[in-house]
């Protein structure tokens, strides 16, 4: 207890630095996954992708990151266990952050596709179950989170399958695909705008003290979505099509329309990623700050300090600005066999799933969800070849990350305990 009073500020500063480091790591590595499909299908240049990612990652983190942060902060661990020794929770959260960030760094250096969400959840469960007591973990909640990791890729796969097939029915399998594309693509933009706006309004604006009623929420979301669709329509109308193109190459023109749509879904994806993944860095930080600020009291209901969400957003953007270019350049060089019409279906499905899960406070893996969506498009016979070996690697890394995150976290936890007591 005295530790918190005597060196509380130092602990907060340590937590903030490690949290920022984690956010920076997420920005540097994970964003490439979120933006990769857009850059890979040549709908966006690297520069455009980075600018969109900066704006929308930050917006997502700030506007819709709160719910997941709460789950990471207090959903996994039974706070009543730490009432007598709140410093253990502080140490634990800092260790978990440090463990997850370290694992992210190691995996990135080795080129392994890991999930930041899995590492932080594994790390928190690890220090609490082994470092403190197995009873300190709310296993029911953890079970729910792990269950969501299996279910969300499935859901996003199904959504992607449906979106892709609807695009086939409405646009590709018609007499005049180009006209149909011009007509229907704004509808998809509306859909993307609507889901994003709705989750932001219903979940995100709470901590900004803006209270909007249910009906008004839907109306505002619809208005936002209409504006998005209209702007999209203007851009589509300004497109120049290869008029000489006969029926032979009409799909090239259709893809141009989808490339505009992909800009919208890329914004969605960045927003979704920001809203979901910022919590991985700042959830533990928020817990530490809350305990220290309350002088050792573990407040059941407390708001997140105002500076924490922006700090996480800033960390992601900084990582993105410093390393995003390099990572995305690698993507840009690789020949991707992905056209905007497929990329959009996968991105929109993944973004919707992630945003809805974020709104529900479930920390899910953005990459897993996107892989699920890609497989969904593949099932609809939309992608020339999917490398199942890589998919398997991603799934394996998903499983391995949990014990590794937990192990590292226990190690750091014992080290911190030894240092401060």
């Amino acid at each position, binding site marked *: 207890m005295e530790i918190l009073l005597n060196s509380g500020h130092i602990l907060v500063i340590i937590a903030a630095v490690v949290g920022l480091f984690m956010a920076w790591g997420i920005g540097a590595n994970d964003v490439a996954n979120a933006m990769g499909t857009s850059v890979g299908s040549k709908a966006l240049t690297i520069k455009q992708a980075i600018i969109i990612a900066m704006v929308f990652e930050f917006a997502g983190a700030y506007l819709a990151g709160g719910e997941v942060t709460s789950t990471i902060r207090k959903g996994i661990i039974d706070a009543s266990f730490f009432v007598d020794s709140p410093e253990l929770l502080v140490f634990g959260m800092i260790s978990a952050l440090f463990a997850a960030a370290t694992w992210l760094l190691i995996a*990135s250096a080795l080129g392994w596709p890991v999930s930041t969400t899995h590492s932080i959840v594994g790390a928190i469960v690890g220090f609490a179950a082994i470092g403190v007591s197995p009873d300190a973990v709310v296993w029911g909640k953890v079970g729910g989170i792990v269950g969501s990791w299996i279910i969300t890729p499935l859901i996003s796969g199904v959504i992607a399958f449906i979106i892709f097939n609807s695009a086939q029915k409405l646009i590709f399998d018609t007499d005049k695909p180009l006209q149909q594309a011009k007509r229907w693509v704004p509808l998809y933009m509306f859909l993307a705008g609507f889901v994003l706006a709705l989750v932001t309004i219903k979940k995100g604006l709470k901590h900004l003290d803006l209270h909007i009623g249910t009906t008004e929420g839907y109306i505002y979301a619809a208005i936002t979505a209409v504006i998005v669709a209209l702007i999209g329509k203007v851009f589509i109308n300004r497109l120049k099509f290869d008029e000489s193109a006969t029926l032979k190459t009409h799909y090239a023109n*259709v893809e141009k329309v989808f490339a505009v749509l992909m800009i919208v879904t890329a914004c969605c994806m960045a927003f979704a990623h920001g809203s979901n993944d910022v919590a991985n860095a700042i959830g533990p930080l928020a817990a530490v700050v809350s305990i220290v600020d309350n002088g050792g009291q573990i407040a059941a209901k407390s708001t997140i300090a105002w500076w924490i969400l922006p700090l996480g957003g800033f960390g992601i953007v900084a990582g993105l600005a410093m390393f995003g270019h390099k990572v995305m350049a690698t993507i840009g060089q690789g020949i991707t066999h992905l056209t905007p019409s497929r990329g959009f279906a996968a991105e929109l499905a993944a973004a919707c799933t992630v945003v809805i899960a974020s709104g529900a406070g479930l920390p899910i893996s953005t990459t897993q969800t996107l892989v699920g969506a890609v497989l969904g498009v*593949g099932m609809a016979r939309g992608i020339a*070849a*999917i490398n199942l070996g*890589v998919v398997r*690697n*991603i799934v394996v890394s998903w499983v391995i990350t949990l014990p590794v995150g937990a192990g590292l976290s226990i190690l750091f936890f014992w080290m911190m305990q030894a240092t401060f007591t």
Partner: protein
Amino acid sequence: MARNTILGVFAKSPIKPLEKHIRLVVKCSNQLIPFFAACYEQNWSEATKIRRKISKIEQDADTLKRQLRLELPGGLFMPVDRADLLELLTQQDKIANCSKDIAGRVLGRKLEIPTSLQEQFSVYLARCIEATEKAAEAINELDDLLETGFRGREVILVEKMINQLDEIEDDTDAMQIMLRRDLLALERDLNPVDVMFLYQIIDWVGYLADLAERVGARLEILLARK
């Protein structure tokens, strides 16, 4: 760091190389037209030059075929069956092989097509090559088929092309019968061994159209699965 991204999931598409392969193959069979024109004029140096060219294109097609096979390992999830795709590739490649064999056999014997048959033979050859071109046209729809998820209008369009291909092949069969009958009438005035080889060349040229039809059939199977 490249593998740490979602893009590793997307493997190299076999469709563009497959289309490129059939274009090479057709280019190869097309060379038979100037080749036989040179033979009619008994311009053997020109014929040798063209045969060398045919052989070169055939080798390029072979290289591409091998490369494509290596790039299609088992662990790929594709909208079409891998075995069907590889079988299609094998059939395509046979067209180039057959073209090379025809040129080689004619040049090796300096085989002369009887003057009275030349015009008829040219028409027959052109029709057989038309079949290979039609097959290439259908294969070139594969990227559009991918765009439309292998169903709907695009499939109907390709099926129409395959039907046209079948018609052309039927046509060449009829032409082949005529050509044999006319050759039969000339037989006694010609060198018997030459006649034997003439029948064989007529056969092989007809085989080009057969192979083209098989490419179409393979494509149809590819579309029918799943």
